[in-house]
């Protein structure tokens, strides 16, 4: 496996790992979960934590999990990437918010497919972490 291919593989693993950590933390809206920092840093980590804090404040938890199918859309520099853009069309149909006290759905609005772009960068220790991501509105991808 080439250096570039290994980098892409690691970047995709970091992307998937970040959402998996977020899914687990979201079950209890654990905004202080140390796991959030395993695959995310910077703006991405802040957004994850603040989103969970907002849910924690409101008394919401998230149940289920999204369906992800990411791919690498760019890598630079090409021969030994340190910054990779991952693009996804995430499906949140079965990953929704509920009131913690009653167990009822927070809203009747359904989830759906969202365009996601994530910036994954190689850290100084050699690991790959998502440094920023953008999740667009429901219906923003096919």
């Amino acid at each position, binding site marked *: 496996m080439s250096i570039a291919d290994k980098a892409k593989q690691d970047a995709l693993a970091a992307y998937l790992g970040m959402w998996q950590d977020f899914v687990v933390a979201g079950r209890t809206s654990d905004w202080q979960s140390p796991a959030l920092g395993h695959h995310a840093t910077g703006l991405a980590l802040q957004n994850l934590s603040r989103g969970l804090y907002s849910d924690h*404040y409101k008394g919401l938890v998230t149940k289920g999990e999204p369906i992800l199918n990411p791919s690498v859309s760019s890598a630079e520099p090409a021969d030994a990437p340190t910054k990779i853009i991952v693009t996804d069309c995430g499906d949140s149909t079965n990953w929704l918010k509920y009131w913690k006290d009653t167990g009822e759905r927070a809203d009747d609005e359904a989830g759906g497919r969202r365009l996601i772009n994530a910036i994954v960068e190689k850290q100084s220790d050699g690991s790959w972490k998502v440094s920023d991501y953008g999740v667009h509105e429901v219906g923003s991808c096919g």
Partner: protein
Amino acid sequence: MRLTLRRLGVLVGLTVGGLLSMAIPSLADDDGWGETDCQQNPTPACDIGAGKGGAPSPGPGGGPGIPVGGGGNGGDGSDPYPRCRYVEVGYQDPSGQPTESGAWYMVVCSPDGKDPWTHGPVFVPDGDNGQPAPSPEQVAQMARNRLRLPAPTIAANPVGDQLVNLPTWLWLSSWEPVAATASWMGSSLRRSSATRSSVATAVGRSRLLSWST
């Protein structure tokens, strides 16, 4: 035929002035990404692919809006969310607290904070008066939501039961304009006014009397 004033149905038209054109604020979607998406957090990654057919990202200042009613007041004339307030919370940022002194706040838009507009946490430096503020249009909308035109009072002569073929005078009171103001954190003062433009009164089964300015 007898006609009593209790049978009069009244339709009231309004003319409302002020800065009133604005979009209803978008709410967070109700899925796992709802509080972290580009609508709530328009980070640089939201611009990736922009102009290439990707989804448009919110412009600067995007994010959750301030509740302004949007015309839906539940039918009883009350505004359930007249304004949001900042509530200090004990949030700690995972990337380390900001170096400048200040505090984290939730922007809470209902008594229990369980409404779709409540959002945060946001960091507000000490002495900073530049908190995320509503636009002038949103402040104007707040003022509009506080407008309450008094119900017109119908008077008649003869008073009480009316008689067929006996001319009856009907008139209205409370035609004066009303005004309301709203401000945000001591600034962005906006004033909206409303004037009743017409009143239609159903008399009997088929006749409609109308007044207008």
